């Protein structure tokens, strides 16, 4: 049966869930969307977007190392992502403070070195780059039930981390010096957060591909933070946006020939743009409303 998008949402839904692989993809996508968006919300706030992108790329050497060593893909993904997080955390400070220049240099070096290693592993493995595109840009065809379970376990771990450490993490993000003075373990929180970020992007990369993790990580959070400054509302919106992006993206990819990564990235970008424009519009109207009585 060839799937066709119709105007009837019910038949569309039945076509979507007729194959088990698609059910798996939707489940995995949902888990990944929630995890990535919550982690991404903190990431955007902490200005660690570059680290997030670099860690997502670590799944490329992870995957090729796993192929070379003959171990499971997930093991390769997660060990490289966590190792990258530890290196960035170690190199990002000068004399105990966050040093943004060195942090960006370390992150860039970790990224390039990791990718170079991945390339080396690939060429040692046989030099066949057949699955490279899939690795880089994602595929939702081959997600197995065990993978969904691994993803769920990671997601629970990540969410527990935020339940326990969310408040102090927020404190140390907003005002690191004050948090440090009040005895919040700032350094430990940074390392912990980067490791969690590594795990989350390692999980996300399996669905969206290495290069497009970013769409789920940064766009929903950035869009939500355009709309509101209230923490619970903005977190909720972030998760909602991420779910919308992945569901619509998967559906469109299922009914057409182009890859899921393209749709996910485009929807994410459009969403951010819409939020940003609506904020500008609201601000302009607000300014006019306050300016009007002054003129009258």
């Amino acid at each position, binding site marked *: 049966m060839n799937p066709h998008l119709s105007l009837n949402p019910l038949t569309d839904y039945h076509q979507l869930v007729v194959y088990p692989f698609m059910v798996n993809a939707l489940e995995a996508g949902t888990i990944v969307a929630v995890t990535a968006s919550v982690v991404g919300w903190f990431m955007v706030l902490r200005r660690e977007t570059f680290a997030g992108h670099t860690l997502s790329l670590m799944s490329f050497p992870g995957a090729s190392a796993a192929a070379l060593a003959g171990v499971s893909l997930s093991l390769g993904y997660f060990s490289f992502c966590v190792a990258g997080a530890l290196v960035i955390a170690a190199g990002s400070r000068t004399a105990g403070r966050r040093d943004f220049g*060195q942090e960006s*240099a370390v992150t860039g070096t970790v990224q*390039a070195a990791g*990718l170079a290693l991945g*390339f*080396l592993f690939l060429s040692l493995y046989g030099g066949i780059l057949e699955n490279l595109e899939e690795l880089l840009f994602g595929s939702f065809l081959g997600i197995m039930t065990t993978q969904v379970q691994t993803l769920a376990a990671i997601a629970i771990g990540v969410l527990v981390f935020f339940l326990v450490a969310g408040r102090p993490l927020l404190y140390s993000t907003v005002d690191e010096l004050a948090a440090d003075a009040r005895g919040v373990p700032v350094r430990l929180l940074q390392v912990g957060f980067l490791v969690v970020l590594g795990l989350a992007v390692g999980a996300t990369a399996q669905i969206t591909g290495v290069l497009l993790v*970013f769409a789920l990580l940064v766009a929903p959070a950035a869009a939500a933070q355009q709309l509101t400054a209230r923490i619970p509302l903005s977190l909720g919106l972030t998760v909602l946006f991420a779910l919308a992006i992945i569901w619509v993206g998967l559906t469109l990819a299922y009914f057409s020939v*182009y890859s899921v990564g393209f749709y996910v*990235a485009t929807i994410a970008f459009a969403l951010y743009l819409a939020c940003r424009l609506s904020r500008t519009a609201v601000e302009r109207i607000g300014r006019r409303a306050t300016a009007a009585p002054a003129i009258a």
Partner: protein
Amino acid sequence: MFAHDFIRNALLAGTPIALACGAVGYFVVLRSQVFAGDALSHAAFTGALAAAAAGVDLRLGLFAATVFVAALLAAIGERARIDDVTIGIVFVWVLGLGVFFLDLFNRGVNGGNGIVASRTLFGSIFALTTSEARLAALIGVCVVLAVLAIARPLLYATIDPQVASARGVPVPLLGAALLILLGIDTAEATQAVGALLLLGLIAAPAGAAIKLTAQPYQALALSCLFALASVWLGVIGAYLISSLPPSTAILGVAALIYAGSFVISFARREARQAALSAVSPLGQRAS
């Protein structure tokens, strides 16, 4: 080994590319803008794929895409100091387009083979022809000269933008100029080490140089030197070990240099600490 054409071409193109990466990289790291370089390198990938899909020269796509995205980032950024979320968002879109072009290309008449994608992503300095290498060398030299020409005011604008602006230094213009130079450098280096790896050549030598010295011109020179050493040692290493891809070798050397700079700066700090505690029992600064 210098009898081989491909080695000569690699070094002919690699030397100016390394110098350009080292010089541009110094300012990029100083301004914490490596992430912008990251975005540009991915734009290079998209540009190359778009050119491949359209059937025109890859280099046209490379330069058009990187310079366009650099100008875009400079335009969006507040006083040419772009924040990472803006870059991230531009990034997402650029990559999404890249996938789209890859799809188009694979479905086109040329048929799908991963070669264009893989060469763009990971580069191959050994695959350059003589004319490609000459052009690359020429552009590399121009980038280095341009960076040196604006080095003084750019340094001023980076270290204290407010005072520089008050003294009449065109701060936003310099920021935009650096981004565009970074774009050109990116397109250039993509051909040698690939879109995904050139970031290391920009970030690692400069990071190491800044770690080792606080003097601007010294650091600039060191950064160029480290980048040059990475390319030369990498090319030689890849020649000697045939299973080692040249891009990996170059990046490996760069990463080792950076790691070495951490060790040296740590050792220096320990030595200073020891010297200080020898002078005064409290370990306080003597002067």
